[in-house]
């Protein structure tokens, strides 16, 4: 009898949000995310029950991938945050905190889910149209003429990953490197005639070095075992500059017969050995390479030792076992076409060019540095990242990749948003003001009562402010000014009296509003119902010099994160029934 196993019935849960167990789990998740948020976020150590690797992180990607929940609603939220991160690489924690906070506020307010969903949806539209306005007070144009705003953007990403354990100076160094690498991959010149193709950054990580040793090189660093670096290779630099010809093979040049398929070979007595014949062909290929004056001979796979020897004897630089990962960057950089057939002669157009190559010692490793032939081909650059240990290095690597992604997003949309919680407080003030003044019409068009609408509005605005509040972990106080509605974090220990100007820091969270240049500001603690009679003012550019922004967030990522958070909260509120297949 075959193994017919009985399928268990599914477990059904009615109105999951009203169950205390589910609520507890969601609160826990919310606390985890909140405590990781921001530059002062706390680190989390994740280790599983069978031992092994211990993960130390505070980034949403690593954390959410490592922590899995059995609760379906949490699974859903986690999946959507990870999906958002895979597209935008930023604002994962922001999405999570906002989403949980929205759900929480709706539950506390006692609004019916269908009503709350409608209100949230409408307020989200208000927010997105506000952020897309030209004169939106939280938007800052990214100026490509100076790299200052780009560096700020990169530093905001890198500094919000405390698990990298970087000092202020190191943060600045890494951010500058990230922007440098990004700029190297952007092709210069006329971009209107043909579509732009961005270059790429290859990251090489070195453990045990100082962070300040990290560098960016144009071109590629190829890992070459010591034995492959023939003494003659060091002469290459002496031969003078000038583009060298490069041949790149993806097919194995090892001379074995493995790629002939699955059949049998029958060799007649007296016939030459097929392997010899293949080697002959390989040598013929080598001859062609020599006569074509190829200087660099590279292969993704193995090269037959005889061929290697032959080529070296003729002064070629031979690199084998490159691995698939490096092929595409090499093709992109040198313009070579990867050759996949050794039976036919190498077509002349398959050769690529490098400007030079020399051995570079990076940390403990010797690597071959290939220089890009010329501008403006899509440039390839190598970023060498150094850090003291493996865990921090991984985190740093991830942070740099995120920073690169965020910088690339600015190419499509050259705008940034104020960081440091100022966008959230400003937007909350705007939405609250607009919602209150237009409550009657909005409630009418949504078909809900005005009091419900105001309740929903209040929940939405305080959820936004909750995100700004989450930046503070050390028991400090958060203030908001009544004119511009920017966020002013006050460190702990400095007692606060309302309106006591002595205790308020010199600038707001993002650094745009300076206390010294704007007298007459009034403050109130955040997330209290403060009276704001008019819409928050946009910080004018009247003061000279324009204050230096300290924190800048990606516009594209945050806009999407906002939408994802609200939609996900709406979705979770809408779920009335859960069916779990327990097989």
């Amino acid at each position: 009898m075959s193994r017919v196993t009985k399928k268990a019935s599914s477990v059904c849960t009615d109105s999951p949000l009203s169950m205390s167990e589910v609520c507890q789990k969601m609160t826990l998740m919310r606390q985890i995310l909140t405590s990781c948020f921001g530059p002062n976020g706390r680190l989390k150590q994740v280790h599983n029950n069978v031992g092994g690797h211990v993960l130390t992180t505070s980034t949403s990607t690593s954390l959410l991938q490592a922590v899995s929940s059995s609760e379906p609603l949490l699974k859903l939220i986690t999946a959507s945050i990870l999906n958002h991160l895979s597209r935008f690489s930023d604002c994962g924690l922001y999405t999570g905190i906002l989403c949980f906070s929205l759900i929480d506020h709706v539950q506390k307010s006692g609004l019916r889910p269908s009503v709350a969903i409608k209100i949230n949806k409408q307020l989200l539209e208000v927010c997105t149209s506000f952020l897309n306005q030209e004169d939106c007070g939280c938007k800052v144009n990214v100026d490509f003429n100076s790299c200052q705003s780009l560096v700020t953007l990169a530093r905001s990403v890198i500094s919000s990953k405390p698990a990298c354990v970087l000092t202020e100076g190191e943060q600045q160094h890494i951010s500058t490197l990230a922007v440098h690498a990004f700029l190297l991959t952007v092709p210069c010149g006329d971009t209107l005639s043909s579509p732009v193709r961005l270059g790429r950054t290859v990251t090489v990580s070195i453990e045990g070095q100082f962070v300040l040793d990290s560098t960016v090189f144009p071109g590629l660093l190829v890992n070459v075992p010591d034995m492959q670096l023939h003494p003659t290779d060091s002469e290459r630099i002496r031969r003078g500059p000038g583009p060298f010809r490069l041949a790149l093979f993806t097919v194995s040049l090892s001379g074995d017969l493995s790629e002939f398929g699955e059949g049998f070979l029958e060799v007649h007595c007296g016939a030459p050995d097929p392997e010899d014949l293949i080697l002959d062909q390989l040598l013929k290929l080598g001859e062609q390479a020599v006569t074509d004056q190829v200087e660099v001979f590279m292969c993704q796979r193995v090269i037959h030792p005889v061929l290697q020897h032959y080529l070296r004897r003729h002064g070629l630089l031979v690199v084998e076992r490159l691995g698939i990962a490096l092929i595409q960057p090499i093709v992109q950089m040198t313009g070579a076409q990867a050759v996949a057939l050794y039976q036919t002669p190498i077509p002349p157009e398959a050769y690529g060019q490098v400007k030079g190559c020399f051995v570079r010692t990076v940390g403990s490793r010797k690597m071959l540095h290939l220089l890009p032939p010329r501008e403006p081909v899509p440039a390839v650059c190598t970023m060498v990242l150094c850090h003291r240990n493996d865990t921090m290095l991984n985190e740093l690597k991830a942070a740099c990749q995120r920073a690169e992604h965020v910088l690339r997003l600015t190419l499509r949309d050259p705008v940034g948003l104020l960081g440091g919680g100022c966008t959230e407080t400003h937007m909350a003030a705007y939405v609250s003001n607009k919602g209150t003044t237009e409550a009657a019409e909005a409630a009418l068009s949504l078909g809900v009562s005005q009091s419900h609408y105001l309740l929903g509005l209040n929940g939405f605005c305080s959820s936004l402010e909750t995100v700004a509040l989450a930046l503070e972990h050390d028991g400090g106080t958060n203030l908001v000014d009544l004119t511009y509605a920017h966020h002013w974090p006050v460190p702990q220990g400095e007692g606060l009296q309302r309106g006591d100007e002595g205790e308020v820091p010199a600038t707001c969270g993002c650094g745009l509003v300076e206390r010294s240049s704007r007298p007459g500001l009034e403050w109130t603690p955040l997330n209290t119902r403060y009276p704001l009679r008019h819409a928050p003012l946009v910080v004018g550019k009247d003061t000279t010099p324009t204050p230096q922004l300290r924190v800048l967030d990606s516009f594209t990522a945050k806009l999407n994160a906002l939408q994802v958070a609200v939609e996900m909260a709406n979705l979770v509120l809408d779920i009335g029934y859960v069916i779990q297949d327990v097989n």
Partner: protein
Amino acid sequence: MTDGGNTIINLIVEKYSYILPPVARGRHADCKRSDLPTPSEEEVSRKPKEVFPQQGSLSPSLRSWGMGMRLQPQCLQLDSVLQTVSVLEAVIRRSFGPDGGQVLFTRDTGQTLLTRHGTRILTALRVEHPLARMVVECVRRHSSVTGDGSKTFVLLLASLLREIQKHTRKARQEGAGAKRLAEALLAFGLDELSDVITVGVAPHGSSLSDPHNPGQTDTHTLCRLLSAFLHTRLSPTHAEIISQLTCELLSHWSCHGDFINEHFPALHTAVSGFPIGCSRLLEGQVIHADFSTPLPLRDHGPIRALAVTEPLEPSLLIGGTVLELGGANRGIESVCVRLGRRLDSVCVILQHLGVSLLLSSVRQSEAVLAAVGRYGVCVLECVCEEDLTLFSVLSGAQPVSDWAVIGQEHVATVTFCRPLVLGAHRFVNVGFPKAEDRGRPHSLVVCGLTEGQTEQSVCAVRDALLMLHTSWGPKHRTRATERTARTDVMEPYCAISVGGTFEFLLHHTLLQRKHRHTHSVTHRHIHSVTHRHTHSVTHRHTHSVTHRHANTPSHTDTHAPSHTDTHTSSNTDTHTLSHLDNPAVSEMLAEALLSVPRQIYSHNPRRYLEAHAHTLSCIRNHGNSPDSPEMSAVLAADGSNMVQADTGSGSMSGSGSGSGVNEVTVWSSSGSSSGVESVSCKYQLVLAVLQCLRSLLSVDTVLHANTSHTCQREEEEDDD
């Protein structure tokens, strides 16, 4: 009734099990809900009649025989059936109607899915009770044909069972058994329901076909139909976006609904990680594969493309063959050279044809990619079959399977070919030159936060297309309408506004028929019923309950036309069925139908009464007089808008806030975007429910067998 208690329903519906020993099998449905309507403690504790095949342990089987003997088989059967269906109904009700919520479903693989699809929810429950499984199977079949009405199916079924129960209790002495009633209902449904709908419902509907341009589809009504359907399957905010996109898609394809239906897998792309608002239509076709060779940057212009279904370079040694080296074949180098030459010749052919895009359904070797890439041809590998089929249909070029006969006719022309990054995937977007017979090809990109959400949207659109197909579908009632002498036969494309209008109208028409029973022309054919019945009985399966009954609905479906044949030929048959049954039957159906609108307005009973009263006034004002169809259609459309507006407000205001403000907005909104639903879908739904009901009630015993004796698989008996 709908407010959620926070209990866990554990549907441990008793499995008709192959594995467990035949002891300790007590309850059919163990239901821990407090607010379930029917299954009282008493009903649950009563054990259904169970018969265990002899397994050596004699005493339990004897005991259960004894219990079975003590109880009234029919009554018991009806109760347990009703109880089972009620459990399903309680689950379905969560996501029914405009205020219904989503159901989150986690799979055993860890995936999370969202759904409001009745069939999906029911199958996800994995119920074990044989009767419940039978119902689920019936729902699945119905919804796979029409794509619609799975939730209403269960509601209607439960409510019909309740009506039957009421009736049998009331009139036990008349011998009106549940099974007979079900048969009478089915017979009524098959014979007369279409007439009733034609008279009572259809005049109040609007037509899907354009009044100015017969043969064309009225896009406005179509959009209303789609939007109403999608509102039952998606959350309201998503439904708006998706229905708008679907309408646009249909209009781009000149409403070739069937074509889109057929090629839908290739016509949509699901992208997760973006808000739903990013969903859009793309011109041309999206080919779900990435370039294997980099796309050469070149200026735009028509591109010649070729679709291939075989590798360009065959493997040198296919498994089992022997290559002889030496002698006439010379060395291996000649083989290699031949290989290279062959590749070169293929490239020359490609160059000769001017092909610069190759769509391959199989993986090509690296050598091919490199060789072809040198000629400036870019290759798409592993293009799935659906994409390739659609490509060849749109371009009119056949895929190449043999390189010997490759010609100009295989070459397709595409207007553009560009890489497309959708979320994590890289696809290719190709465009086609304008063709006059079909619209401009467009593809649908569905975005969502998670895969569960995109899948839900995709599934909803697919079913919407299926539903459209049913609404446009072949006129399966032509014979029935032929018989009626009226000229205003029921239009196949008829659509009626949502919000229970269909049910209200049908309810009243049925009741009116009951009053005017003696005048009405009724054809009842007990003959035909018994004919079909015996047929299905002789066709009895001896496997399992589910199998046997899974087959029954389709079985009767296929026999329905032949039945009508005999019917028309033997119009002079004596009316053998007692006329007493008829009013009872139509009354039962009429009452049962009301449960649907009652559920729609369950959060606000006042709206229900208003909607009901409104439909009544419509009928009273215009009657169902078929003499002035235009007039009544106009007025009815007007009225139905109001009804719809009503539903809209119901969904918006909810139960709590019935304030005056809402009403003003509701009644002032003209209802131009009000939804409609297809009358023919509704008709099929009622028929399917009646068929399911009959097959449910014709089971009287469930036998639990043990698998160790495969020969004793006969689990189930009919009572006749």
